[in-house]
């Protein structure tokens, strides 16, 4: 879980943002982007020395001015639960995938010739394949000829 993904997870949670200049902004995270620019709502701004306060309904903070963000403990727990659920899904998915690929291998082994035939048929449109096709068809003719010979 990257720091910025964690920030995204913290959306709608209360947080404290301290800027490089020492001002702090307390509010609920509305949105954020990959530059760490953020939107807050119901904000209380505190001056560097902590003796003046401003209240504002919303604010936008440019990411590059941020020193750090403090988020509630439970956000990291949410992430852990998410990650666990995801890894559970992934293992199940992998199990299925292994089962499927085993089936596919079996299928491929039994039908290899047919596959090759189909593929060369599909490729016939390209100019580079002409020689190959001639070769193949030539071989086919020869086989045919051989068969004819055998029949005689």
């Amino acid at each position, binding site marked *: 879980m990257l720091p910025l993904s964690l920030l995204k997870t913290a959306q709608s949670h209360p947080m404290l943002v301290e800027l490089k200049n020492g001002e702090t902004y307390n509010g609920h995270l509305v949105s954020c982007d990959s530059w*760490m620019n953020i939107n807050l709502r119901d904000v209380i701004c505190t001056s560097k020395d902590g003796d003046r306060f401003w209240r504002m309904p919303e604010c936008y903070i440019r990411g590059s001015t941020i020193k750090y963000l*403090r*988020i509630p403990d439970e956000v990291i727990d949410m992430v852990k639960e998410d990650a666990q659920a995801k890894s559970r899904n992934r293992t199940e998915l992998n199990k299925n995938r292994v089962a499927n690929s085993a089936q596919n291998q079996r299928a491929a082994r039994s039908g290899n010739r047919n596959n090759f035939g189909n593929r060369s048929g599909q490729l016939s449109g390209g100019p580079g394949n002409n020689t190959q096709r001639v070769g193949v068809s030539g071989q086919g003719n020869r086989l045919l000829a051989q068969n004819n010979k055998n029949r005689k």
Partner: protein
Amino acid sequence: MDDLNPLAGTAHLLEEVDKKLMVLLRDGRTLIGYLRSVDQFANLVLQRTIERIHVGNQYGDIPRGVFIIRGENVVLLGEIDREKEQKLPLKEISVDEILDAQRREQEQRQEKHRLVSKALKERGLAVNAELINEDFC
């Protein structure tokens, strides 16, 4: 095996994940917590963080919780040795006491600064206190 590792020989933080780290910020603050995540900008996620304030040979810890630190504000970080942590040559005092000590230290520094600029002024050197960044003194 090393040839396959794209991070071999480069400075990186991935090995520090989940360890107890001390992080020094550019504003001089010291944070101690468990590193949970990093990215290519050295943005950090610290969990169970405390802010440790040192004054002389005393220190105090303030619990702070979870931090997302923007990488450019980090000066250095390093793993805390759990064994050496037990026998620090420092004395832990309460939060109130350390904040008080910090305030007194700050006042002393300001007083010293005032005297220095006064002395410089008397010798014909005008010093603009606003322009002096205390971080680099």
